[in-house]
């Protein structure tokens, strides 16, 4: 017979009370776990979507002039001389401090070419990188693999009545149309997309790059810092973080996180109150029993140990069930809360936090009842005998 035997037997014997106590904690912990799991899954979903969204940093040559276009409308027909980067230096992007966050680097060379007497924009790309970045691109035909193969924007194809398999001449060089992009509603509809190095030759810009799109794969990564780090490597470049989409989505998540935190605190508070009230009731009910313990020689500390051991057991059971209950609810409800949402999986760290939180709450809520029990005067307690 040890003190923990008394605690265990009491909990076993008073199953109804034990279940009530555990339920209080399970509801609290399950709510916290559900909300945190859903928030985590939402963050992951946003990250995934942002990755699909493409580049989140764009590097262009610095230009002192102001742009005269807005929303795709050019005013005044002003053409500026396009400046370029040295292609060899592009690899320096991978030397920044946050290089581990850099996923895709997609360099481009851009310039005008004549097709059947009309000016058309030619964009030279590294197809492998470009396709990884523009996951939403869909095209009829096959992705160009040879240097003399091109991908046409939908507008270009219809303007020049070109389709897959047709030949076209660009600056005296023969190219084969390998695929035609389906309309994207973006600039790609109006360009001819060809291999980077072949385009450099066509445009007379060997070893030059007009712009670089960069995709940073990370959840809430330090995009501003990365922008500054790249700008430091390329003093002549204008490095822009495409933050708007990230910010608005992250703001929504932050809002949901704050809401979750508020709800969690409220539910945890109610759960703790439930444990406190039940433990107080249990101590009052057990006055006689505590009197007997004290009369046969139990010290105050022994009585406290018995009550707190019960709280510890209740906390552990509540935390364990609350964590798995919350994870299950998150898994089951996520498809309804978030379209196409995928459950982030069982988070061991969250499990440990749940157990610690549950045990701490249970112990904290039982501390006063335990002190009250241990301070019972044995003669007073025995009066109820």
């Amino acid at each position, binding site marked *: *017979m*040890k*003190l923990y*035997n*008394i605690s265990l*037997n*009491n909990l*076993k*014997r*008073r199953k109804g009370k034990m279940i009530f106590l555990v339920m209080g904690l399970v509801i609290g912990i399950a709510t916290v776990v559900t909300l945190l799991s859903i928030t985590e899954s939402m963050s992951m979903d946003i990250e995934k979507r942002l990755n699909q969204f493409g580049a989140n940093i764009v590097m262009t040559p610095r230009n002192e002039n102001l742009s005269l276009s807005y929303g795709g409308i050019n005013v005044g027909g002003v053409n500026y001389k396009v400046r370029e980067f040295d292609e060899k230096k592009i690899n320096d992007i991978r030397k920044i401090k946050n290089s581990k966050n850099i996923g895709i680097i997609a360099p481009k060379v851009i310039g005008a070419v004549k097709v059947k007497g009309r000016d058309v924009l030619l964009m030279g790309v590294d197809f492998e990188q470009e396709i990884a970045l523009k996951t939403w691109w869909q095209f009829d035909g096959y992705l160009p693999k040879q240097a003399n193969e091109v991908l046409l924007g939908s507008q270009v194809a219809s303007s020049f009545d070109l389709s897959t398999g047709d030949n076209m001449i660009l600056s005296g060089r023969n190219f084969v149309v390998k695929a035609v992009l389906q309309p994207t509603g973006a600039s790609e509809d109006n360009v001819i997309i060809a291999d980077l190095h072949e385009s450099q030759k066509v445009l007379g810009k060997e070893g030059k790059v007009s712009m670089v799109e960069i995709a940073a794969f990370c959840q809430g990564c330090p995009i501003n810092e990365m922008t500054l780090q790249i700008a430091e490597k390329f003093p002549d470049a204008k490095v822009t973080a495409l933050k708007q989409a990230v910010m608005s989505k992250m703001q929504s998540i932050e809002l949901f996180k704050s809401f979750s935190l508020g709800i969690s605190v409220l539910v945890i508070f109610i759960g703790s109150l439930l444990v406190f009230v039940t433990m107080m009731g249990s101590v009052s009910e057990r006055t*006689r*029993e505590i009197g*007997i*313990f*004290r*009369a*046969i*020689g*139990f*010290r*105050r500390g*022994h009585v406290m140990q018995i009550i707190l051991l019960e709280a510890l057991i209740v906390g552990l059971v509540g935390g364990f069930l609350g964590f798995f209950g919350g994870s299950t609810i998150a898994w089951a409800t996520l498809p309804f809360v978030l379209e196409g949402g995928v459950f982030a999986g069982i988070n061991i760290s969250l499990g440990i936090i749940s157990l610690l939180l549950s045990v701490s709450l249970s112990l904290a809520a039982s501390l006063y009842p335990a002190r009250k029990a241990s301070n019972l005067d*044995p*003669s007073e307690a*025995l009066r109820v*005998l």
Partner: protein
Amino acid sequence: MTDNRHLIEIKEVGKDYLSKDVAVKAIRNMDFFIDDGEFVSIMGQSGSGKSTLLSIIGGLNHPTRGNVFVDTLDIYSLSSEQRADFRSEYIGIIFQSFQLIPYLTVLENVKLPMAITGIKKGKKKEMAMNVLKKVGLQEKVNRLPDQLSGGEQERVAIARAIVNNPPILLADEPTGNLDSETAIEVMNLLKELNDDQTIIMVTHNQDMCAYSSRTIRVKDGECFLY
């Protein structure tokens, strides 16, 4: 310190308490001693102060005045925690209405006083089984209290009180809830235990005093020795 080595010495002990803002003298300056090996009955009517006296002797109820010496130790000069240790070592209490812990089995109830001692697990069981054999309950060790008769519950309470082998056994109306036949059985058991323990028994039943070697009568908080 006392002049003579009595096991228990009550020196000018008094106990007052407030009842509806009125001071009531539960015990009025009592003075007596109990020697080692005695079986003393404390007899009196309800409300005479006999249970209060027993709780004072047991170190459970601080007297308003006077001293209680047990084995020359002034027990009310000790702190509350030291008195708990004293009770664990010196006192076995048989409560009125048995007062067993309902969620513990017979064996666990008997082992309860040993939960706070350093005795090894196997030894605890051996000691508990020995006293259960002594009270004739070795066959019912795994029963819960509510599965026992009144007499059996009383015997479990006695086993729990003696398991640590305390030198002093306090019994508060041990036969109060028993039929006369079972009461005689219990009194015979207490008489047997008196070979090893000093017993102080509170009762209001004159017949039970016959088992004791001496009776202290208590009336209106005062004692009369016989």
